[in-house]
């Protein structure tokens, strides 16, 4: 019931998103069959809104999945090096095979993302003490190092513009024919939903999961592959949407508790709604210019992250 209301709210946001933009749309002209208005709606607004919904929902689910399998509340693709590694992969493809179809670039990006996540896990394994706080800390620094590497290559190859496009989640360039890959990301996120129980079990830790008869390693690999795939898709189509996968699952779990199967629809809806709201905000705040959705979410996301950390401090004291 409450979930239904949330769906309605997101639908309303989507409707607003269809009408907000530089060139005005009017309902009466659409009804009158005005060709220009229909073209804008069909070629730009609908793709953009769909892209927002898909990217928001799948990134939020990817974040949730990652928190469950890595067993830390503060990880998500942009705090584990996954996003930066995907960007590095895309850069490598742009350097080596600029003509490759986008799906191939995305696949390579996904492989790099998986590699980046693997590197993160490897570093984690060597950390002597497993403090809740040190895990995201290492991830953020790893992200910084990967970012420096990416910047270095991009700088040498004169591709800073391209890198900038990925590092700033920006949907102003989304048109029909340039966002459809996101459906694939959403499909992967759906797999995560279907296999939710297994991931919840895997989240209990290796010993517990194994004693319950679960092939822990394989489930972990599946989970991280899904996360990497979703990340690569989102980065290649709309760029980095920072902290979304971190704050949405945390806020949902504050309200609902930690059962993944129950949380997934809420996380998906809230993720989609939050990204939509931020994008609409970005379009109207400084019209006719646009503020990228990545910038707005960066501010909201890091602030929320900060509050989550400090809230933990008060509880611990």
């Amino acid at each position, binding site marked *: 019931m409450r979930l239904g209301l949330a769906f309605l709210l997101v639908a309303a946001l989507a409707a607003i998103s269809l009408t907000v933009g530089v060139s005005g749309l009017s309902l009466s002209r659409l009804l009158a069959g005005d060709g220009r208005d229909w073209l804008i709606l069909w070629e730009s607004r609908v793709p953009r809104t769909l892209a927002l919904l898909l990217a928001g929902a799948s990134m939020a689910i990817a974040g949730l999945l990652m928190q469950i399998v890595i067993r830390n509340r*503060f990880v998500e693709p942009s705090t584990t090096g996954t996003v930066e590694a995907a960007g590095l992969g895309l850069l490598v493809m742009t350097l080596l095979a600029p003509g490759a179809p986008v799906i191939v670039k995305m696949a390579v990006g996904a492989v790099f993302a998986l590699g980046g996540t693997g590197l993160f896990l490897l*570093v984690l394994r*060597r*950390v*002597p*003490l497993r*403090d809740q*706080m*040190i895990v*995201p*800390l*290492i991830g*953020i*620094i*790893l992200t*910084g*190092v990967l970012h*420096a*590497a990416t*910047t*270095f290559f991009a*700088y*040498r190859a004169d591709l800073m513009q391209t890198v900038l496009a990925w590092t700033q989640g920006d949907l102003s360039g989304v048109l029909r024919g340039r966002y459809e890959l996101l459906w694939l990301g959403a499909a992967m996120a759906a797999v995560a939903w279907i296999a939710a129980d297994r991931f919840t079990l895997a989240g209990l830790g290796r010993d517990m999961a194994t004693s319950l008869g679960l092939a822990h390693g394989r489930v972990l690999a599946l989970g991280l592959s899904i996360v990497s795939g979703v990340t690569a898709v989102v980065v290649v189509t709309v760029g980095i949407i*920072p902290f979304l996968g971190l704050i949405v699952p945390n806020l949902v779990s504050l309200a609902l508790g930690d059962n993944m199967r129950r949380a997934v629809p809420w996380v998906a809806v809230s993720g989609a709604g939050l990204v939509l709201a931020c994008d609409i905000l970005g379009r109207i*705040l*400084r019209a006719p*210019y646009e*503020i*990228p959705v990545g*910038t*707005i979410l*960066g*501010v909201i996301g*890091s*602030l929320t*992250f*900060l509050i989550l*950390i*400090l809230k*933990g*401090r008060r509880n*611990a*004291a």
Partner: protein
Amino acid sequence: MQPEARILPVTPAQSETRAQLALILLGGGVFLAAALFMTLGARGSWAFVLQFRGMKLLGLILIAHAVAVSTVLFQTVTANRILTPSIMGFDALFVLSSTLLIAFMGSVQLSGLDPRLLFAARLIVMTLFSMALYRWLFLGEEQSLHRLLLTGVVFGIFLRTLAEFVQRMLDPNEFMVLSDMLFASFTKIDPVLMGIGWALVLAVTLWLARNLARLDVIGLGRPVAVNLGIRWRRDVLLVLALVSVLVAVSTALVGPVTFFGLLAASLARLAVGTTRHAVLLPAASLTAMLLLIGGQTLLERLFAFNTALGIVIEFFGGVVFLILLLKGGRR
């Protein structure tokens, strides 16, 4: 602690010799690097080359000193070796205060102002900000190092994105003025700012030179320092204010550099093997100069690509940070 003990000196005499040797080697290295930087590949009029490169060299020295000293001081008062002012977002704070200044006053008003006055305004805004922030973070109840680190790092991200957000809200023309003001580089240094920078940094350095023993006592940690008569709150805030000044100077001159200070301070600690500020501060400063001048010489003259030095340093600095974390980052 164990793996490090192997490379540290065992007796005070060894320790003393080691520190002196390290300082001499570092000093010699800096001298050599500076000489190469001034002369290598020079063509045309020597007078022009020396003047042109001399300006750049003065800038590099100033930046290296400011970044290294601010990092060591910050690590002393926060009792850790991982956190640096720039990882905690001090430089983002400077960018943010400059952005806010433009947002509220408008570039027209600002362009009429004396650049020195403008710099002073940015510096004051930033120092006030940082005082408020670090009072809240460091002078509260004692807390876990990792939580503090994470808070600092995320706060840095928050400040950076907030600055970016405010910049996006600016008029594109105002933004142009701002980026002119903000995004200098190692090779393009404003002579007026450099004059102010040198004056400020010399003043801070002079104060430090007279208070080395006090810094050593602060480095013993709050309980022992308070016992020895340090007025903790006042002294820590004072040191943080000095750190703000140093960071403001380096950020105004070259823009944000996240991991450079960490790289220099960590290498210097390794080289001298002591925590006495009389040795550590000059060592860190010299290490930073060696990295910056040597690196710039290598990149400019040998590999012939410009301004990427910042990026290279970021990369290695980041790796050092990871290594420090992996070693446990003892408090």
